[in-house]
Structure formats: C-alpha cells, structure tokens
C-alpha cells in the first residue's frame, strides 16, 4: 500500500516537473522578448524625444490650431508622443512574449485567446482614457464658465456633466468589451432617459413660476449700465 502511494507521488511529481520543463523555455523566451522590447521601448522613446525636441515639436503644435495641451495640460505634446511610442513597444513586447510562450508549449491556447481579445481591450482602454479626459475637461469648463456667469449652482452643474460623461463612457466601454450587453444597454437607456426626463420635468413644471417671475423682473428692471461696463479693463 505504502509502495503504491509512493509510486503515485513520484509519478505526479514527475508529471509536474515534466510540465515545468516543457513550459520553462517558453517562459524564458517570453521574459527575454519582454526585456528586449523594454530596452527597445526606452531607446525608441529617447530617440523620439530627442528628435521632437530638436525640431521644436511643442512650439510648432502650440502655434497651430491643435490644442492638445488644453486636454491634457500636464503633459507637453512631446512627452505624450514619447509615452505613446514607449507603450506601443511594451505592448508589442508582451504580445511577442505570449506568442513565444505558446510556440514553446504544445497547445497554443493562451495566445489564441489573448490575440482575439487584445484589440477589444485596447479599444476599451482608449475609450476609458478619452472618456475620463473629456469628463474632467468638460466638468472644469462648465464649473469655470458657470462661476464666471455668477450661477449659484455651478458645482452641481459641473458634477452633473462629469457624471453624465462618465456614465456614457462606462456604458460604451462595457459594450465594446461585449460584457452584459443587453443589461448595459437597458440600464444606460433607463438611466440616461430618466435623467433627461427628470431635468425636463424639473424645468418644465418646477421652474415655470421661477422663469416667468425672472422674465417679468427683467422686463420691469430700469435700464442701468452694469458695473462691469462702467469699468474699462483694457
């Protein structure tokens, strides 16, 4: 009995070691591929930064109509391009690594599944990034504009815009990934439609008196030069 247990253990350990021995070259190949592409990414990023700095890329872009800096103010256009180049190399390295791993193993399952999902994943990541940047930009724009227009509910307005964009982005990302498609569509439709309907009702019913009073007040107000117009700023 004891011999049988020993034999079973030996066999299972042998199988595990054999599996490891089979996978190890693939793992090492993947690691080497990632390291090589990492080095290439650094070199390419350095080269890109040097070339763009030499040709005055930031200054040229600032002069033109493209205002990348308005959307991602913390990064200069050169830094953005440099980072994009870097990450393209890193992602390529990962894919090559996975492919090398699969080539070394007997069944190429991992790379098949991964290559099929990667384009969607990249698309979703870009959507998420753009949505976040857009939400931040629009919420700040609305907040500043509303404050400068002396609207008391400026913060509320800004938050509303931010969450509308974020909800829209979230729904688009899930849809793009193909996760819970029908639920997401329905939930988003109900949520977005509900918000718009609620706003319409609030303005149409709740603020009817307010709007009419405001119009009456404006009509009855004597014509007087606003303070700002008595001042000449420039």
């Amino acid at each position, binding site marked *: 009995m004891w011999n049988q247990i020993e034999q079973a253990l030996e066999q299972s350990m042998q199988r595990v070691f054999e599996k490891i021995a089979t996978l190890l070259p693939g793992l090492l190949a993947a690691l080497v591929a990632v390291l090589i592409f990492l080095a290439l990414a650094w070199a390419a990023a350095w080269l890109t930064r040097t070339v763009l700095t030499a040709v*005055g890329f930031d*200054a040229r872009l600032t*002069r*033109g*109509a493209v205002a990348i*800096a*308005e*959307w991602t*103010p*913390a*990064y*200069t256009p050169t830094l953005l391009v440099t980072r994009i180049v870097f990450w393209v190399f890193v992602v390529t390295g990962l894919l090559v690594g996975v492919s090398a791993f699969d080539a070394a193993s007997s069944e190429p399952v991992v790379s098949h599944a991964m290559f099929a999902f990667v384009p969607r994943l990249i698309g979703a990541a870009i959507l998420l990034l753009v949505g976040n940047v857009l939400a931040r*930009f629009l919420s*700040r*724009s609305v*907040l*500043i*504009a509303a*404050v*400068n227009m*002396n609207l*008391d509910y*400026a*913060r509320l307005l800004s938050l509303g815009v931010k969450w509308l964009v974020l909800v829209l982005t979230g729904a688009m990302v899930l849809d793009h990934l193909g996760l819970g498609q029908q639920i997401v569509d329905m939930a988003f439709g109900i949520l977005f439609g509900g918000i718009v309907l609620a706003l319409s009702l609030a303005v149409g019913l709740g603020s009817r008196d307010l709007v009419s009073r405001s119009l009456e007040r404006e009509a009855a107000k004597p014509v007087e030069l*606003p*303070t*700002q117009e*008595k*001042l*000449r*700023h*420039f």
Partner: protein
Amino acid sequence: MAEAEVLEETGSGAGQQAAVDLLIGVTGAVSLDELRIRVSEVLAQAGRPGPGRVVVAWPGGEDATPVEPRDGFELIPYRVPPVNDGGAWAQISAAQRGVLALAAELKAAACLVLAADLEALHGEAVQTMAGAVLGRQCDLALPVYALTRYEGLLNTAILAPMSRALYARRVEFPLPFEFAASARYVECVAHSHGANAQGVLWPLSHAVQEPMPRNAGVCQVHLRAHHHAPMEGLDLTAVLSQIVGALFTEVELTASSWQRLRGSQPATVWGEPHAPVMPEEPVDAREMVESFQLAARNLGELWSLVLPPVALLELKRLARQPVESFRMPDALWARMVYDFALAHRLRTMGRSHLMGALTPLYLGWVASYVQEIALLPAAEVAERQERLARAFEENKPYLVSRWRWPDRFNP
C-alpha cells in the same frame, strides 16, 4: 530725383536711396486719402524731422504698390506677417512687427508706430515721440495715456506692475497702441527669430534683453489719444486669455533675461499730462465681490492646483469679509499673479481654464481697488498704483524661486 524714379526704387531696392529719417507706420486698415491729408497736416505743424526721407507705411495686401511721393513724404505698403491665433491684439502686434521690419529694411533713423484709428497722428505726438528717439535720448519711447481711474484696470492690476518688476523699467503702459523706436531697437526686433518673432509684441521686453545694449534708453511721452480697445464686447475671461496669457507667454520666453534683473529704473517722462476724455462715474463693487465669493466657494479645488496653501487660506478669509471692508492685500495679489504665471508655464491645467480661474480673483482685486481709490485725489491714486508696483517688485524673488525650483520650492 524724379517722382517716378523714387517710386521705382522704393519698389525694388529701397535701402539704396537717401536715408530715411522717419518712418510712420499705421497698424491697421486706413483710408489712404485721409492718411495723406493727416500726415501733410502733421508735417506742416511739427516740421520735417531732418533732411532725409519721411515714409508713411500702411498694411497693404499682396498686390499693393507704393503710391507716388507727394507733399514731401512717400506712402509705402508693408506686409503683415500671418497670424494663426491669439485674438485682436495679436493682429495689431503682427502689424507692428510688419512696420518694424519695413523700418529695418529702409534703415530708418526712427520709426513711429501708430494705431489705425489715427488718434495719435497729430503734430504734438509726432514731435515728442519721434523727437525723443531722434534726439538720441532713448531707444524706445512709450506713451502715457490719459485715463480715468476706472480705465485700464488690467494694465494697473497686472501688466504695468509685472512688467516693471520683471523688466526693471518703470513704464506705465507696457502694451501700447503707439510707440517710437530707434534704428538699433528696430534692428533688434526685426531680426529676432523663433518664438520671439511671433505672438504679441511687448516693446519693453525687447528693449531690456540682448542684443540691445544694457544702457538702452526707455522713455515715456504723455500722449493725447484715446483708443477703443479692439476686444470690446468680449467677455472678461477672453480678454484675460488674450492679454494676460500673452504676457505670461512673454515671461516664459524671456525667463533668462528677467531673472538677472533686480529693482527698477525710472523711465523719463516727456511732455505735459492731458486730462482724461471719459467721465468718471462711481462704481459699485458689490457685484464683483459677490463674484469673488461665489468663486471662493466653488473654485477652491482648481485654485489649489495653482496657489500655495497660504494664499488659499488668505482667500478664504477674504471671502468672509463684508463688501464695504473688502480689501485684497497687494502682496497676496502679486504672489497670486506670479503663481498663475508659473502655472501657465507648467501647464498645471489647460490655459483657457487657468485664465477662467484667474478671472474671479482679478474681479476681487478690482473690487478692492475701486473701493480704495473711489474717494482719493488723483495724486494719491498714482501713489496707490506705485505701492502695488513695489509689491510686485518686492515679491519678485518669490517668482524667481518658484520658477527655478517649481517642485522643490515649498511656499
């Protein structure tokens, strides 16, 4: 020399003719007939500046040609460099650069740049401004406009004190419609390149940086002219973006120059002061204070990206003050302007957002200022402006420190 010959030569090789004593350049569309009549009158009043040629330049299109010389002066078109963006003042600056480029090409002894409304095209202005340069008293003559205490507030709040602190010359209007320049100043501006040759032209910054000599003279002339700003009708944030944004850009471009300058030198003022044209009406600051208070409640998060905690604390305290006693300390204002200049350079947030966040702070300063000066006599208003300018000067080390070590320096 026959008139036809002069015309031909100005078209091809203008530099080979007799020297140009004075070039008067108009920085916008103007009726040539009116221009000719006005210049004839001016030369009759003020006299010719010398034995050489007098050239009047106007912004002609691609197909514009020089007009036959008459009444003792020539009319020559100049090319306005293309402007991508930057608003109305960028257009004016492009025209000013065009005038200076023509003056450099003709090797004019003096160049007088005038606004398109021709408000300053009169004998007294031409005589004093061009005279200051031709008499070798200075390389750059800037105007002193006669404004009421409620006019030119952006100039009083930011442009004049910041220019003085950075470029070390006590100039009242650093962004003028008109100015006169010597031949060597014209050469410097016309041959500037890269980012320095584009965007809004700040005459003073060119006068204090290389290749101009250190002893380059800057003087001022009391000018009888009242202009309507080209950006009337725009909202305040847009005006700040165009004007203050342009100043911040210039500050970034000239960082290597102004960091070396300390203190300030007075700029001699020529001529007699004129009375302001506009009537002075009392201003109620309540609306502006309320705008500031609303911003203090809502924009704290954005301000905290730009301003240090001490300033934020002071702003909170200010927001609690009643309207009547609302006063913004000069040092706080000066430091905040410097912080925004640094944020503009570092792109801490989008530049349109940055100027939007500065707008209520500026309104707070205006509210404080107009309440303070409402009952003061004119001389004390000038003293008040001097105090503000000194605050900018005294806080310049703060800007220099933050500029050099934006991450390391902890205010």
